[in-house]
């Protein structure tokens, strides 16, 4: 029964109840009443329902007093329940006139939110609700404020606070704003004049912040962990494991952010600082993006200004000095023109034409000595191309990308040219998906600026076929799904590290059986390039996986089910090459979630038992991992690491909608 329906059920005259109507105002259903002429009041009691004539609102209380019988009519009730549209409100006291309903010490429950307020004033004519000292909480966040007005589904808040901490008296953090607009339908908040409050600390934020339940659901920590290859030299600046906080707002305008962190945190890499200011300004037809600061301990400057000359032509001026993480270091001043236009053609097919020209003064540097250029000189280039696509047809989707470019290096007297042709075809006929592509670059690879713009010849054919879908079902919670596929890559020319030929051929198939809380996976993946087209760098093996997962187990604390799954897994790799045949490894692993009200641990451990089977040697610890999730009223934070065969990865995750389970 809906709230309104429930309320209406109370508001009917029965054998023992009576009804009285005040024309154009309200109807009262009551068990007892007493008139108090000297006080100009009538008291209804013993279970009372008051409904507005028209049914816009309903009050249920043990006792309701109608006041001002000979003057201005009103209502008074203690501990009433008020039904207003799809909202249900309870309060310590209700006072009403023919124009307003006033609730004191009120709580409110709606389909999408609930909360409380010191006072709520409902305007019976306009339908607006004015609240003071209120808090409203949805699934993902809570909004509180000094006062607010609810008109329709829009709540306008003065001196607002938004936090994901729900149900706590003193929130450890909140985003404060001078004003906030809450859309209760879209469940979004727009804050103006934002300040982040962390305990007693206050940090200025962008002047306008928009939060939605969807964005909070997708919220990720502004923390990035990277591992930049050192190319064999651990002393290479910026290499190794790095951690950085990104996108920290600077100032009130909201167009400047700061990335801060460090690289080379793992031995034997060299530590380096990261402190980058990023600016992004857009004004009518001009855009400026700038990044400057220190990256991996080395200075970095990257400024790019664009201006729209015509709707299809942009002019660009840029300045670059330093090395982005893992990139080739260089210094450059560059001007350019970029054109892009969609050629109108009838029907679904599309055609986009692009062209560009640039002039640059470039100095390629060493990561170890940015001040000494390795190669220096101007670059003059031009390029043109088009992209055409048929859109989806009965025969699939066809597209082709082309590009022709030429760059002249006056100082070196060199000219590099390159032409690309990249046709693709894709067909999706459920449950089958087919894809075929060819990507070729024809070039003379003449650029002196290796690592910056030198092209490499390419002739790559890729193909794949995959089928996936549900195979059988029994009842509501038992089903089998399966998938099978094959994909291959053939290079007509050698590429970096790979000879010409069939460089990849992978076939896989798998089944998943789900029944209630259990799920079972079985799969096999064959990598066959090494046997179909043998070459020294090509391997051939088959990987077999069996895995069982169970959700909601084990329960260590009454009423607290684990969020993560219990899992046991066996993974075997069988070599197919003559020089490495047979069982290469057999990993047996288990992951067990240990859940408590505010903490969940998920340790995993795995051993390679192939040495035991093959040679009687002890198993090798191949996997150890731990995820630690702290669950608070503000959301949950998961920190974890995985060490698989010595390769360590770390993870951080935030789930703002996960809070301690409420015990029944």
């Amino acid at each position, binding site marked *: 029964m809906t709230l309104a329906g429930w309320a209406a059920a109370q508001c009917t005259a029965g054998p023992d109840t*009576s009804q009285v109507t005040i024309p154009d105002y309200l109807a009262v259903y009551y068990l*007892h*009443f*007493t*008139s108090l*002429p000297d006080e100009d009041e009538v008291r209804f009691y013993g279970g009372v329902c008051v409904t507005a004539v028209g049914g816009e609102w309903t009050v249920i209380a043990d006792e309701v007093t*109608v006041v001002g019988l000979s003057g201005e009519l009103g209502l008074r009730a203690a501990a009433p329940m008020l039904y207003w549209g799809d909202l249900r409100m309870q309060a310590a006291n209700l006072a009403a006139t023919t124009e307003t309903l006033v609730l004191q010490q009120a709580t409110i429950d709606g389909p999408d939110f609930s909360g409380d307020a010191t006072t709520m004033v409902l305007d019976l004519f306009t339908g607006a609700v004015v609240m003071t000292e209120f808090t409203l909480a949805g699934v993902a966040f809570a909004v509180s404020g000094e006062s607010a007005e609810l008109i329709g589904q829009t709540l306008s808040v003065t001196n607002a606070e938004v936090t994901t901490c729900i149900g706590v008296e003193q929130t450890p953090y909140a985003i404060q704003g001078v004003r906030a607009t809450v859309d209760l339908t879209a469940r979004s908040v727009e804050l103006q004049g934002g300040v982040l409050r962390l305990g007693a600390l206050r940090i200025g934020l962008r002047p306008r912040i928009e939060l939605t339940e969807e964005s909070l659901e997708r919220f990720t920590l502004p923390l990035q962990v990277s591992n930049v290859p050192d190319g064999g030299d651990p002393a290479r600046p910026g290499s190794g494991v790095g951690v950085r906080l990104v996108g920290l707002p600077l100032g009130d305008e909201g167009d400047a952010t700061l990335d801060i962190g460090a690289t080379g945190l793992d031995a034997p890499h060299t530590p380096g600082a990261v402190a980058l200011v990023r600016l992004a300004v857009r004004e009518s037809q001009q855009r400026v993006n700038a990044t400057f600061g220190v990256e991996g301990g080395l200075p970095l400057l990257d400024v790019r200004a664009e201006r729209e000359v015509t709707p299809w032509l942009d002019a660009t001026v840029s300045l670059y000095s330093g090395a982005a993480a893992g990139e080739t270091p260089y210094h450059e001043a560059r001007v350019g023109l970029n054109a892009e236009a969609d050629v109108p053609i009838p029907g679904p097919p599309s055609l986009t034409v692009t062209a560009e020209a640039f002039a640059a003064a470039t100095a390629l540097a060493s990561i170890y000595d940015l001040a000494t250029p390795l190669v220096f000189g101007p670059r003059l280039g031009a390029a043109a191309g088009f992209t055409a696509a048929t859109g989806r047809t009965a025969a699939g989707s066809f597209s082709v990308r082309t590009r022709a470019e030429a760059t002249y290096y006056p100082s070196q007297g060199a000219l590099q040219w390159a032409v690309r042709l990249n046709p693709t075809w894709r067909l999706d006929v459920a449950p089958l998906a087919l894809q075929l592509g060819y990507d070729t670059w024809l070039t003379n690879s003449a650029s002196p600026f290796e690592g910056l713009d030198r092209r490499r010849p390419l002739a790559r054919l890729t193909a794949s076929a995959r089928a996936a879908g549900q195979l059988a079902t029994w009842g509501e919670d038992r089903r089998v799904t399966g998938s099978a596929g094959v994909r291959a890559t053939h290079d007509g020319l050698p590429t970096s590290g790979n000879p010409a030929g069939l460089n990849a051929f992978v076939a896989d198939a798998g089944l998943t059986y789900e029944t209630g809380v259990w799920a079972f996976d079985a799969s096999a993946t064959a990598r066959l390039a090494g046997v179909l087209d043998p070459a020294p760098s090509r391997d051939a093996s088959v990987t077999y996986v069996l895995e069982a997962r169970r959700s909601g187990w084990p329960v260590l604390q009454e009423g607290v089910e684990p969020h993560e799954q219990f899992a046991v897994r066996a993974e075997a790799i069988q070599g197919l090459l003559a020089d490495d045949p047979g069982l290469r490894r057999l990993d047996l692993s288990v992951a067990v979630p240990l859940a408590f009200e505010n903490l969940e641990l998920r340790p995993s451990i795995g051993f390679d038992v192939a040495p035991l089977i093959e040679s009687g040697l002890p198993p090798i610890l191949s996997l150890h991992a731990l995820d630690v999730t702290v669950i608070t009223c503000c959301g949950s934070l998961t920190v974890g690491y995985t060490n698989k065969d010595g390769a360590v990865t770390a993870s951080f995750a935030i789930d703002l909608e996960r809070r301690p389970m409420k015990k029944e």
Partner: protein
Amino acid sequence: MLLRFLASVTALLLAWGVAQEAEGTQPPEGRPFAALTILSNGRQTIDLVTGLTTLPDGGRLMDAQTGVEVLAQVIRYVEGEYIEATAVTVTGVFGEVTAEALRIDVKTSLLTATGELRLARDGLRVSATSLRYDAVDQVAVFDGGVAGTEPTFSADRVLLDILTGDVLLDGRYEYAGGLFTMRSPEVGGRLQLTLQQVGEAVTYAATTEVSPALLERFKAYL
């Protein structure tokens, strides 16, 4: 000769009636209606066998103990037994009642009025089919389509406490109290109207929760 005889009989009867008036002022038993003063507007006949006295020209009855005074167009009574009257106006502490017929049972001190009955007293106007007034308990019970105009109400039965002026509506009722018209539940109920003096005005406080004291007062009539 005949006229002279009639005149002397009338004179004799009048003399007896005067003697009766003198005797009626002494309440021999101390009960309401036990000591009545009866004044005839004209003729008065006595049935010497039954003791029935008839005042065909009407008259006035007064009970010194209750203060009840009855004006009627025809009065018939048997000394110490009952009094019957038609087209009566009864005044007393309960107010003024007009009715087509009245009977006072002297032995039980019960006054019964029927037909086009109306009661008027301070703050209360009632019409009903019948009235039963117990002069000992000083409770009046109105029955049969009882309706009030001051205040406006209707009820199956209305009980009036003559001493306090409190009223009880019994059974299915309707009561118009200012903005409201209260109606009893479908199965009927009770509504207490408590007389209140607000400034110069007499008004009633209404409540569905009847006080135990009033229920006790009306216990014999509910």
